[in-house]
């Protein structure tokens, strides 16, 4: 079975969909209140750098997934242990997104429907997509992800009449502290989460484009986040914005003459599907690579089912979810998103790997890109 390939555009769309993922329901960097735009710029820069590190790791180890890199650089035993930790992280991440999704739908549209049912239905769709393989996921992304920024822009433009463009003032009322904190949380969510793509990068057909793809998609995501932020704050005002649960949703409620929250649902479906799909794919692929199973699709349903259960199990209620994400998630995530990848980068730089067999072309690409 030859390696399935995805084109640069497909990877770009998947990455962007992943980054939009939950940010379409939970506006990022809100901890910085009026200065969130600053936090987004700082965090976006940091996030782009972080993603470039991932790209560099992948380029230094052509045609190797995260698990293979770990095993090669850290030794079989330690590498496998860390790989298992990563598997856990991917599964947990998928379940967190599931939970965000479920809580959102249950709050704004279907308060009487059990969240488990909603999540399960959603999971069915995701697993079906993941089972199709990277190619199908890539094509889905290519087809559907452009819808997200389109809708965001439509809503933003329509709300322009009710905007108060100076609402984001004053700048830096509370100093840089909250801004940096928010920027940090913005790096870990969503940028750092793209560490899951280390399982996907080897499937890219033209390696030399990887850095560009990664950078542009990070920049696009930050840009869209800024647009969303300015839209939200100028429509809602900073006082109200700091109180509402799902900021983008509350903003769309103000769409003149019509209620467009189904549009948010659509964005959610697409972004959520991209994000969870990639997480589940990464987890399943990692499991099968650690265990040495050839066909990863055997395990997708099991992993999907476990993610659903985990998402319900993990938190008691919506506030539990939010407070945990706020207090613990950053530390938890930094381990996987920054520390281990940095170690890997250093190790990869120290001992350049010999190219995996049959990947001369990839290797040339790496050399060319340097």
């Amino acid at each position: 079975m030859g390696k399935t390939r995805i084109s640069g555009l497909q990877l770009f769309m998947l990455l962007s969909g992943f980054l939009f993922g939950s940010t379409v329901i939970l506006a990022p960097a809100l901890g910085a209140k009026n200065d969130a735009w600053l936090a987004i710029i700082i965090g976006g820069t940091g996030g782009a750098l972080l993603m470039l590190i991932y790209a560099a790791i992948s380029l230094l180890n052509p045609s190797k997934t995260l698990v293979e890199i770990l095993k090669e650089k850290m030794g079989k035993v330690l590498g496998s242990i860390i790989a298992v930790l990563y598997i856990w992280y991917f599964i947990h991440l998928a379940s967190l997104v599931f939970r965000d999704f479920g809580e959102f739908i249950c709050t704004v549209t279907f308060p009487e429907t059990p969240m488990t049912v909603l999540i399960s239905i959603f999971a069915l769709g995701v697993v079906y997509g993941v089972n199709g393989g990277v190619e199908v996921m890539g094509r889905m992304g290519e087809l559907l992800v452009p819808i997200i920024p389109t809708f965001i822009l439509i809503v933003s433009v329509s709300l322009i009449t009710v905007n108060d463009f100076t609402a984001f003032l004053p700048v830096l009322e509370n100093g840089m502290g909250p801004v940096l904190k928010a920027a940090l949380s913005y790096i870990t969510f969503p940028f750092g989460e793209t560490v899951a793509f280390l399982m996907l990068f080897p499937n890219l057909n033209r390696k030399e484009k990887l850095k560009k793809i990664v950078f542009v998609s990070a920049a696009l995501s930050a840009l869209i986040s800024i647009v969303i932020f300015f839209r939200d704050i100028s429509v809602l005002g900073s006082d109200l914005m700091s109180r509402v649960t799902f900021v983008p949703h509350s903003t769309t409620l103000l769409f003149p003459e019509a209620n467009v929250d189904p549009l948010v649902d659509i964005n959610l479906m697409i972004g959520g599907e991209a994000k969870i799909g990639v997480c589940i794919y990464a987890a399943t692929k990692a499991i099968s690579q650690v265990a040495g199973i050839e066909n990863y699709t055997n395990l997708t349903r099991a992993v999907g089912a476990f993610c659903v259960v985990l998402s319900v199990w993990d938190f008691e209620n919506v506030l539990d979810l939010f407070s945990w994400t706020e207090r613990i998630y950053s530390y938890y995530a930094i381990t996987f998103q920054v520390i281990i990848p940095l170690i890997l980068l250093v190790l990869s730089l120290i001992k350049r790997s010999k190219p995996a067999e049959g990947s001369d072309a990839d290797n040339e690409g790496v050399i060319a890109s340097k």
Partner: protein
Amino acid sequence: MTVKKDKGRKALLILLLIFPLLLAGCWNNRPLTEINIVAGMGLERTEDGKILVTVQVAEPGAIQPASAGGGSGGEKSKPVFVASNEGETVFEALRGMLAVVDKKLFLSTAQVLIIGEKLAQEGIGEILDFFERDYEVSYLVDVIVAKDATPDELLRIESDMDTIPAVYIKGTVENTAARGTVKKTLLIDLFKDMDCKGRQPTAGQITKSSDKEVRTEGLAVFRDGKLAGWLNPYETRGFLFANNELKGGIVNVPVDNGKAAFEIIRSKGSVSVEVEDGKPSMLIIRVNAEANVGEYGSGGRLDSLETLYMLEEKLGEEIGKEIEMALEKCQKEFASDIFGFGIYLHKYYPKCWKEVENDWHNIFSKLPADIRVDAKIMRVGLVINPVGKGE
């Protein structure tokens, strides 16, 4: 291999497709025939401190004669019914109403939300929380405060003009908002200002003028979430001028031995605060208005530029007077900054705002004001000189 895989995918797809069928129609599934379409809502405080919720419900079958089959039954029914119920909280009162009405109340279609005077005086903060929190409430409902009448009375009027009284009330609000004598206040505006120290919320005013008619003019001014008082229509217009929310309106100006009426076409207002030594020293209001001559009954000619400049000046003075009235009332009587001077301070002088934030009401009411209106007359209508003044 591929065929097997395809079969697997197909089976999963079929599973996915059949699953919904099995569970068809549960949970939030509610046909339109099983809900009561709320057209208007009213909130009032009862004597014993409870909350009285009144809803006006539209009966679609009576408004639009139903399809041929169902027509015979719905001949005599009234287009709306009004029900009210009291409870400790808004939510309780609303849900308790289900004991009276036949179907679940659906709030998102509400056209107006009328708040009773008594309730407003005691504070609307905690009441509004329900509307903020509930997922079915539209944030774009018109909010008006009832004066000299209870919301219950207002919702029970039978209007000749529209089959649904709430729609009629909403219509009057739109009209007067276009005339500049009432501020069209949406629920979201209240939410925004409620929490904001730099600007106090305001809402339109509604009174009952006869058994079948209402009158929406004037403005309810809040202070710390409580009704502080009312602005009359002219003051309201002054406030709107300053706040850059005026959509249009007629301003009368005494000229020589008669009156002239000007129609405001465009108006741009801004408020700001002058800060000296880190302390706010002066409230500044700037208005640029463009107007057309709508009526000219002074008996003089109109074809000289000097007259026009003179009229412009007088129009400016008149508008300035209205603004001054509004500002003075807010400063002296209510001590409530409805203009948003505080927001301006907060945005551009955050340090200064930090100091005055907690005592803003007092500081605001003592500050001198500088009001400058620049009015321009653009056109004079189809004739230039009035009757009998031609050559």
